[in-house]
């Protein structure tokens, strides 16, 4: 292996990458657009939820509770109704996303310090929204009841406070959960896309034939080609990281260096996959089809949008075949929980395994002849 033959390849790829403006913009812009869409769509907070109110208590306490919900900014006043049945109809008709039902005896129970029950109806058609509403309803309700209790009980002289705390993601922000994972998704997407085309492009333009008659060795060609793409992918990942900080203030609670070390390790996996695709594909079309085959499961089974814990058992085992599923806990762990190697080493082993597997597979399929 000679650096004197790797460098010309890498330089050529760089020139070609910068000269192909459209692809370059695609490489840089797509992740940012994804970041904005996912960042704002999964939304920091879900706001403007129309809340139907069934206040059967008509007491100052019940009005104060409703007020607490509206004051949170997440709920807006929906229809005022008289019964549970009416509330169901309102949700059926999409006049409201949620309903609060305060029973007749609520004011009295609160006044005497007895447990009071308040029901909350949530439209479950959109699970993501629903879970956010549920979380918000409990959080606000508990906060308010704690306040009320503190006041009433405090008046009797035995002060105690109830503190409900949501760990790791106190705002229950979807953004905080999704953006770290997005870095993984983007690293995978850009890298597979770019490397899958790397060798196929030479085949399609006929330049592969010309490269074969030079003294370059397959490993030199591979490394020379991968360097620019790895660098491009890392740059986009960094862009997403920075944009995530600036636009969505996603906290990094763990070690940033460890984060980047894991990024580099993970990068080897999509590089291997892309290279393998490139080695076995005869045309762009084939390469694109194969790329989709790898990216789609990564999307669905990685735990990015659908929690692995809630998948059927069989599917849960299948997720072990998806390299991204090892990387997402690392990202979320370092970002949100601030954990490190003591907790994350099993994920590291999973990544090392898949990186070795795909790189070996790719280089064994890569021969320096056309057939």
């Amino acid at each position: 292996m000679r650096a004197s033959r790797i460098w010309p390849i890498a330089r050529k790829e760089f020139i070609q990458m910068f000269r192909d403006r459209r692809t370059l913009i695609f490489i840089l812009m797509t992740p940012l657009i994804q970041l904005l869409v996912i960042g704002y769509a999964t939304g920091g907070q879900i706001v403007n939820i129309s809340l139907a109110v069934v206040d059967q208590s008509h007491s100052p306490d019940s009005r104060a509770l409703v007020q607490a919900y509206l004051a949170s900014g997440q709920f807006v006043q929906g229809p005022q109704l008289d019964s549970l049945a009416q509330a169901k109809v309102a949700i059926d008709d999409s006049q409201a996303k949620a309903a609060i039902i305060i029973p007749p005896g609520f004011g009295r129970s609160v006044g005497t310090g007895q447990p009071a029950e308040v029901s909350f109806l949530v439209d479950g058609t959109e699970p993501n929204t629903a879970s956010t509403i549920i979380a918000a309803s409990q959080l606000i309700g508990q906060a308010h009841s704690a306040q009320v209790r503190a006041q009433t009980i405090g008046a009797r002289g035995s002060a105690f406070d109830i503190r409900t705390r949501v760990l790791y993601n106190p705002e229950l922000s979807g953004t905080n959960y999704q953006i770290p994972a997005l870095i993984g998704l983007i690293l995978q997407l850009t890298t597979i896309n770019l490397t899958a085309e790397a060798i196929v492009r030479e085949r399609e333009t006929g330049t592969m034939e010309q490269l074969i008659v030079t003294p370059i060795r397959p490993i030199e060609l591979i490394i020379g080609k991968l360097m620019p793409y790895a660098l491009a992918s890392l740059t986009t990942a960094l862009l997403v990281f920075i944009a995530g900080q600036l636009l969505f203030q996603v906290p990094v609670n763990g070690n940033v260096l460890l984060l980047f070390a894991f990024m580099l390790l993970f990068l080897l996996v999509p590089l291997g996959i892309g290279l393998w695709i490139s080695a076995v594909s005869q045309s762009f079309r084939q390469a694109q089809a194969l790329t989709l085959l790898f990216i789609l499961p990564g999307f669905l089974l990685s735990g990015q949008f659908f929690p692995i814990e809630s998948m059927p058992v069989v599917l849960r085992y299948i997720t072990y075949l998806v390299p991204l599923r090892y990387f997402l806990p690392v990202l979320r762990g370092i970002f949100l929980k601030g954990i490190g190697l003591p907790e994350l080493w099993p994920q590291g082993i999973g990544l090392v395994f898949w990186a070795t597997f795909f790189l070996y597979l790719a280089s064994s399929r890569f021969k320096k002849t056309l057939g």
Partner: protein
Amino acid sequence: MDASLAIEATGLRRVFGERIAVDGIDLRVPRGQIYGLIGPDGAGKTTTIRMLCGVIELSGGGARVAGLDIVREREAMKERIGYMSQRFSLYPDLTVIENLRFFADLFAVTRQQRAALIPYLLEFSGLTDFQQRLAGLLSGGMKQKLALACTLIHRPEVLFLDEPTTGVDPVARREFWRILYGLLKQGVTVFVSTPYMDEAARCQTIAFMSEGRILAAADPRELQRGLPETVIELAARPLELARTLARAMPGVSSVQAFGTLLHVLTADPQATEAALGPGLRAAGVEVLSIARTLPSVEDVFIAMTEKKV
């Protein structure tokens, strides 16, 4: 092996699935020659060249190119050869000079060699003024010359050219051959495939290839002289009718159209000549001229393929 040979192949064979592309051919190409591989599309020319350059694997046989075994010493052999494939295969998004430098880098051409060679290659290919132009924006003839310049950057001993002038205009073709003769003077062996019979006559040795086999290999003039048939050149109107009628004349083995002329191949020229003129006129064909002529390379090739069948 014979050191005076640039290429020496025995029983070279390549099979693609069921199809035999190259059917055990022998080649002996002396150093310092322009050697032409002539044959129609699908004859196996490209497969032969690709095997000799180490681009594809062999199904059988073997060869030595520039003194090295093309299987066992493949990578070392590649440093001694230049190969220009049929398609224009340089990087269209790199400039002329970037393409040249890229191949110079891969072949580890030293700075001193480069300083002398690059201006020379640009000069002879007429690309000096187009150094900064993207290769994809060059004309067909210029692309071809740039591809040639790139294959010469490491001073190869043997140059393989696969149909280098296909799709290039006649002026550029002549220019290209002028360059090849220039290389010959520097001692480079040129192995060129072409479907153009007129180009075959420019080679010192030609090998006729058809359906994966070599029918004959010799000096083109020798082949022309050695043809047992006589060629009668005929100008007549309408051409198609004349052609159909001529085929049925005594002694005629084949009739080929060359533009507005017909070449009638005959084993019995006297009988054919006696019958041809009157026969055509009787059928209402206007005969403009009838004369014996020297066989062209194509006449020889056609005579050989017909005999084989």
